[in-house]
């Protein structure tokens, strides 16, 4: 067992050491050694995770402490690992995608002066994310939670000279902090009620508190609902759920590899993982589950709409990510935790693939990200084309592809839910299928098919790969007459390696993962939530499920989405333009992202600054310092100014006042006698 424990430690510590090596000694190591060290460390972490996966499948779960962090009162706060089936799935997903992204980065960041720093950051991210998923207590969960937030902040602002990047990273951090505000209060309630932050203790005692009233003065909320909703607010920040979704599209300012790793495949799914991990708590509150489901449904549908009007290739995928995160959240609300994790996994593969594919396109386009300037790229970059097509097909839920199994299961599970809001959620996820197919293939067609719109000479940039501008990703694009070409192997190899699971992983794993009691006691479903059981009874194998789908609504919706996007953008590009003109109100609403950013900037950011200035000018400067502090000083000064007049220094003045004084005193004495 102690052997396994050192293996557990190795998983997060290897990338941490890699990060330290590349971060502190990057200059001494040089570029090549920096990426070798970090890639090796993440590879070690991945293979150790594989070994642990085998061990867990053999029935060896682990729950124990690594060290005691601190004690207070009678409570001990610890750093420890909980290794069960939920954990190992996450460990594998995280380390595999991270490994792919590390390799890809060699190509993508080849000319960037911050090469070592970048590798250090993504290894540090891997460490943080692993600490998050391997935690056996809320305190460590929060540590990992904030640590991935930190790395996300650092990476969004990686090109720190760009105003948009440093605006986006501050925004991301602060919006996440709003979520963490709720999360921390939730943790506080957990500690107060259970006297411990240890998962095992909390989950074991959760049931006996199911009907308690929350110990919150002035309100009488159900305690479990309060705890779960507060925790979920944290998830809304990290997993970018409405209305805390606003940071994710802006996070695309970061280099593309991290958009794939952090803002699609892993970090943003931390919230999903957290809720699944907390299933013993969430199962005790239908209110919280309803809340989760509705928030997820809003995100799934309405963020999808926004993907339709975006022209930046990365932003289209970003809105797609938001929408897919919404799908996972809806699944959580329907008590289909395993389905959410299943979609999390398939999504990690195909979305990382799509992002890295987009990155490959961006390299070929010399960092022009506008899909209106692309078109016909399939001729020039066949590997990117095929893999992106695979990713898109998986995303829209084509039967037999990984995304089909997970997404269809979500739709089914939501259909079986009876919670308030499930009707709306079902509508949202079904309608979302059409939207997903439409925006995905709009992008796909505009990038890879149709007229070649690049190299129209709208820039006089003469660059090619050799003299790429440093700290790239600026929109400069191809020069006149220049043709894009396929990217080097370090870039396309990860695409291929990700394309494989994007196709097959769903088919292989759906049966054991969803219906084989794979997660065992890691996920708890209350007896009254029977959706998963019904789903299992209707399941007759992966092939049958795919064939059955041919006659079901979602597939036809997806097909309709693909065809209409082809019709609109390939066949009759005049129609979308006409629609844009006719429904300019709706178009503007979508283009302005429902005015969320404007509102937040004006109300929250501007409001805070205004309040701050007012409080400072009025409260501190005028009232406290002006009136009270310096005011009393002035008062003393005034008095002394009057008194000073008497202190003239002439002896006869003093003598005169003495005589008057004596006279007055004597008169008073006489008066009283």
């Amino acid at each position, binding site marked *: 067992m102690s052997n396994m424990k050192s293996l557990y430690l190795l998983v997060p510590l290897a990338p941490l050491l890699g990060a330290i090596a590349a971060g502190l000694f990057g200059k001494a190591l040089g570029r090549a050694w920096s990426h070798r060290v970090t890639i090796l460390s993440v590879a070690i972490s991945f293979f150790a995770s594989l070994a642990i996966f085998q061990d867990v499948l053999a029935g060896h779960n682990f729950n124990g402490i690594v060290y005691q962090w601190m004690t207070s*009162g009678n409570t001990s706060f610890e750093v420890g690992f909980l290794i069960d089936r939920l954990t190992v799935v996450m460990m594998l997903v995280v380390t595999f995608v991270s490994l792919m992204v590390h390799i890809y980065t060699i190509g993508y960041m080849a000319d960037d002066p911050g090469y070592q720093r970048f590798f250090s950051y993504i290894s540090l991210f891997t460490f943080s994310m692993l600490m998050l998923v391997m935690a056996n207590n809320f305190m460590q969960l929060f540590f990992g939670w904030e640590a991935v937030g930190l790395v996300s902040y650092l990476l969004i602002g990686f090109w720190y000279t760009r105003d948009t990047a440093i605006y986006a990273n501050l925004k991301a951090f602060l919006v996440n902090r709003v979520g963490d505000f709720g999360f921390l209060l939730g943790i506080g309630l957990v*500690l107060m009620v259970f006297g411990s932050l240890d998962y095992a203790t909390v989950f074991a005692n959760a049931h006996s508190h199911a009907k308690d009233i929350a110990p919150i003065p002035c309100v009488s909320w159900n305690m479990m609902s309060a705890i779960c909703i507060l925790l979920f607010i944290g998830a809304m920040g990290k997993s970018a759920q409405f209305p805390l979704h606003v940071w994710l599209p802006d996070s695309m300012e970061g280099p593309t590899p991290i958009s794939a790793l952090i803002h699609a495949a892993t970090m943003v799914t931390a919230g999903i993982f957290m809720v699944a991990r907390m299933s013993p708590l969430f199962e005790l509150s239908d209110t919280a589950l309803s809340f989760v489901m509705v928030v997820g449904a809003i995100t799934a549908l309405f963020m999808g709409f926004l993907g339709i009007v975006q022209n930046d290739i990365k932003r289209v995928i970003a809105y797609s990510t938001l929408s897919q995160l919404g799908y996972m959240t809806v699944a959580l609300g329907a008590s289909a935790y395993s389905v959410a994790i299943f979609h999390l996994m398939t999504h990690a593969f195909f979305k990382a693939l799509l992002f890295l594919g987009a990155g490959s396109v961006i390299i070929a386009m010399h960092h022009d990200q506008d899909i209106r300037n692309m078109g016909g790229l399939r001729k020039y970059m066949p590997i990117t084309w095929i893999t992106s097509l695979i990713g898109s097909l998986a995303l829209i839920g084509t039967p037999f592809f990984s995304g089909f199994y997970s997404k269809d299961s979500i739709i089914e599970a939501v259909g079986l839910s009876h919670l308030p809001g499930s009707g709306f959620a079902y509508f949202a996820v079904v309608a979302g299928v059409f939207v997903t197919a439409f925006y995905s293939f709009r992008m796909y067609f505009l990038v890879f098919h149709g007229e070649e719109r690049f190299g129209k000479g709208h820039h006089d940039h003469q660059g090619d790969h050799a003299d790429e501008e440093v700290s790239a990703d600026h929109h400069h694009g191809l020069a006149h007459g220049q043709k894009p070409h396929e990217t080097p192997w370090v870039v396309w190899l990860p695409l291929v390696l990700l394309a494989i699971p994007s196709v097959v992983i769903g088919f292989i794993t759906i049966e054991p993962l969803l219906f084989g009691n794979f997660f065992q006691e890691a996920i708890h479903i209350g007896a009254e939530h029977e959706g998963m059981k019904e789903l299992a009874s209707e399941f007759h194998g992966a092939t049958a499920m795919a064939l059955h789908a041919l006659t079901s609504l979602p597939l036809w919706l997806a097909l309709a989405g693909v065809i209409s996007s082809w019709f609109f953008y390939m066949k009759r590009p005049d129609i979308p333009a006409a629609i844009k003109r006719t429904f300019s109100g709706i178009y503007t609403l979508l283009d302005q992202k429902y005015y969320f950013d404007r509102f937040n900037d004006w109300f929250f950011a501007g409001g805070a600054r205004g309040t701050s200035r007012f409080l400072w000018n009025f409260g501190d400067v005028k009232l406290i310092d002006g009136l009270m502090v310096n005011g009393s000083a002035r008062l003393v000064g005034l008095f002394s100014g009057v008194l000073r007049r008497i202190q003239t220094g002439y002896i006869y003045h003093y003598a005169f006042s003495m005589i008057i004084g004596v006279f007055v005193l004597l008169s008073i004495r006489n008066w009283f006698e």
Partner: protein
Amino acid sequence: MIFGLPLLSVAIWLPIVFGILVLATGGDRNAPMARGIALAGSILGFLVTIPLYTGFDKMTSAMQFVEMRDWIVRYSIHYHLGVDGISVLFVLLNSFFTPLVVIAGWKVIEKRVAQYMAAFLIMSGLVNGVFASLDAVLFYVFWEAMLIPMFIIIGVWGGPNRVYAAVKFFLYTLLGSLLMLVALLYLYNQSGGSFEILDYHQMAIPMTAQILVFIAFFTAFSVKVPMFPVHTWLPDAHVEAPTGGSVILAAIMLKVGAYGFIRFSMPIAPDASHKLAGVMIALSLIAVVYIGLVALTQTDMKKLIAYSSVSHMGFVTLGFFIFNAYGVEGALLQMISHGFVSGALFLCIGVLYDRVHSRKIADYGGVANTMPVFAAFFMLFAMSNSGLPGTSGFVGEFMVIMGAVKANFWYAFLAATTLVFGAAYTLWMYKRVIFGAVANHHVAELKDITAREKLVFAILALTVLGMGLYPLPFSEIMHASVNDLLVHVARSKL
């Protein structure tokens, strides 16, 4: 006693003796010698406090390393020293910072070097005296004496408006202290002629008197912390003080006020403490929220960090007056962490000020381009100031919020807004100063930090990370004393 040395006396008087030695080197011709002696004295001063930690018995709440001698027999005033699990940490913190300040001022201070160094050494000894005194008069003497070096530091080496700031600082804190003296004299009479602080802890006091005593102490301590609304001296003092002065002011002097609450107000007047806890909590929460907001739009970096200090100290007083172990221990950890972090942040601003001679945020931008190593250190300290887990700044805030939930969920709700505000004001400042394109030729000409500066930052960075990742050594030493305090405060003295 290790090697039979009266360690606390050594901790107090060794820096003072070295300070006088430094003074004896005279004019700036001997500046190198003054620096050398100061460094040796400050390092030695820190080394002698280490046995206080290693030799500390964690199992007891009793005073340790006690020294007791007659001083003024007629009024039964004693030279009585001792530390418990609470005060020992601050003696260490204070002694830890003195060498850092000496190194930080090594090149920067070129005028009256000996006096500058001496002021810090002497102050270090006096502050140790404050934390180690068990006799009320002795405490009061150290308490007032400590003002003098700081007054001089601000008044002599300070910025253009230093006289206003120094006088404001001095009057504010002195006025507060006078009422404390009255309270001590009352307690002397009530106790039948004792100046023993620990006697006061056991003494029964009627409610009205408790409340008056509490208010008297409150005026003294709240100014030092500082609590809202008597905080306005701090931003001015910080802005005008030289870097070293700001560091000691933020890292050490503010802690003295908070320490007073826990050594005097709460155990001497427990019933009044409970009765007035609502007011204390309200003022603390105002400090957290109001001051956090005020910090947001400050244009002067030092002022911003000064306001941030007030906001962070709000957590300390909040933690004390919710009367549970999480809260009190969290508050104490917050005090220590705030020492490291605010000290480090003032050093960061000092590094910039030494090069550009401006503290205005608007005069910077894109510093990361020219000072990448500095930017990395600054990032760590800024993150710790925003309470990032894994750094020391998280530990205290986390514990206080946990304790506040236990006391009243809505306290925690207001306190936790610091997650957003704290990050907003710190990181927004960081963004405007460090990130972005190079803003002007001053920034373009910046040189990254020297080996000397790197050493100071590295020590602080390791401490901040160490405490964040493994706070147990800090917390376990205080358990017995905090438990004893909580039991004591829960018992009525009426």
